């Protein structure tokens, strides 16, 4: 039996358990929807935002940020908590007793992130279009950018999540460690707070982490021309996004491979 066949079997099982877990459904899958609704309701009284000539509704501004947040939650938060719990409650130990390769296990996790992350993004776009009446881009070039930022961002997030799962000392502490970290990243990466309102030193710090780049990529797709002047160096800097995410992908991959154990390391 090949690594890929078992990986496919894992994807099916992983996705099934994801949708049966109420905590994950709320804090990972539906969280961006909740935040989009809250921010849209809270700030819509301010009217349209943006540089002169390129004003958009507050909902339209938040949509790309929430898609980026969804990528981070589906990958980093979901897997870091999920795998730490599986290590704590014996799920991993049991899988480690079977002829399942760790690679197939990784494929299952990344596949789960892909299926659920894609569904989440599609539903966010649908909700943005149908509920908030946001105009979605029509140029094919924008959707090409969307596709590669989405795929690169999701794979990177998944690998960083697998790597992070080695940190919590117990399954129970996983949510306490991971959720605040991820929340902090969302505040400083231009997801909850408008990116150009953040001080430049905070922007610099955010630039060390992948979410800032995913969010920037998504803004380049969904915000109209003219908004790029509010970015660092007044540019969408797609090349910078690709490089930053590629570096994090490699870091995540290496750390995942090095730190992964079916059981806790010997004392």
């Amino acid at each position, binding site marked *: *039996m090949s690594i890929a066949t*078992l990986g496919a*079997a894992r994807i099916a*099982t992983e996705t*099934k*358990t994801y949708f*049966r*877990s109420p905590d994950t459904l709320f804090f990972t899958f539906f969280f961006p929807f909740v935040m989009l609704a809250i921010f849209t309701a809270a700030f819509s009284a301010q009217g349209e935002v943006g540089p002169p000539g390129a004003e958009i509704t507050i909902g339209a501004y938040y949509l790309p940020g929430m898609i980026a947040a969804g990528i981070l939650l589906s990958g980093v938060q979901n897997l870091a908590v999920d795998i730490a*719990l599986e290590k704590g*409650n*014996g*799920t991993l*130990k*049991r899988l*480690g*007793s*079977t*002829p*399942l*390769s760790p690679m197939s296990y990784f494929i299952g996790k990344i596949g789960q992130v892909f299926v659920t992350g894609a569904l989440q993004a599609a539903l966010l776009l649908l909700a943005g279009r149908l509920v908030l009446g946001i105009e979605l881009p029509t140029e094919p070039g924008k959707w090409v950018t969307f596709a590669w930022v989405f795929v690169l961002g999701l794979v990177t997030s998944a690998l960083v999540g697998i790597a992070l799962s080695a940190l919590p000392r117990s399954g129970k502490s996983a949510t306490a460690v991971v959720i605040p970290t991820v929340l902090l990243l969302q505040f400083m990466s231009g997801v909850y707070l408008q990116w150009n309102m953040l001080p430049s030193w905070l922007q610099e710090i955010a630039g060390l982490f992948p979410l800032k780049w995913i969010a920037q990529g998504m803004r380049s797709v969904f915000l109209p021309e003219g908004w790029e002047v509010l970015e660092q160096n007044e540019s969408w800097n797609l090349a910078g996004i690709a490089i930053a995410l590629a570096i994090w992908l490699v870091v995540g991959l290496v750390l995942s491979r090095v730190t992964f154990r*079916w*059981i806790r390391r*010997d*004392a």
Partner: protein
Amino acid sequence: MTTNDVAVRVRDLQKTYGRKAAVDGVSFDIHHGETFALLGPNGAGKSTTIEILEGYRIRTGGDAHVLGVDPAKGGLDWKARLGIVLQSTGETGLLTVAEQLRHFASLYPNPRDVDEVIAAVGLEAQAKTRIGKLSGGQQRRVDVALGIIGRPELLFLDEPTTGFDPEARQQFWGLIRRLKAEGVTILLTTHYIEEAAQLADRAGVIAGGGLVALGGVDEIGGADARVPLVRWTDGTGSHEQRTEEPGLLVASLVGSLGREPDGLEVIRPSLEDVYLQLVRAAEPVPAREEVAA
């Protein structure tokens, strides 16, 4: 004898954590088709020994072969020949019994039939129930089912019947006897000595990281340990005496006292009595409790 003649061969096994020895010089063989019970108090080194043989932990010293393979280097092909029933876990149990077993069956090259395994552990009525909704004893049966779904040559059973009611335990024993009849080699640990006496051909008693007894379940501890014991109390205090002829001893006591002796007991040591003697003799056990986990 080469390592291929036995299913498990352990020689002078050592495992130290820092300066503490959790396992210190354990040696035994398990023959093909044999059921071997490893007995011992909590923290004695049982779990560490088993986890080394299962490939989870790396030994510090000594030799181990499991199905002809060094467990520290066992690959996926080797794992496909093992079945492992771990001590009870706290998994979230979001899949149904049938879903979980079908998935695990798909991981093995030559699995047993899922419905047959569900029937063998007596969970037909719960097949479509999520595992998290089952009782503790029923979840333990799922653990056993997952351990045998891959048609293992060697089955590790780590305290398999914890949480079983007496009837479930009897059913479980029946299942293990059927597996034995199919030629499956079994390594069992249990706190129910009666269970070891029922199922095992041979047993090893581990205490303080070392093996203090090894032999057939009818012989372990030596012939002396199984000699009947007579206890009684008289004016000078309580007495106990081992004798092959307890009836004659009691008759002579009655004769000399001229009446019924106080607190009279005649004990034919069970495996449990022998076990407790062995473990007490091995005390004081140095503080090994911390390394038990």
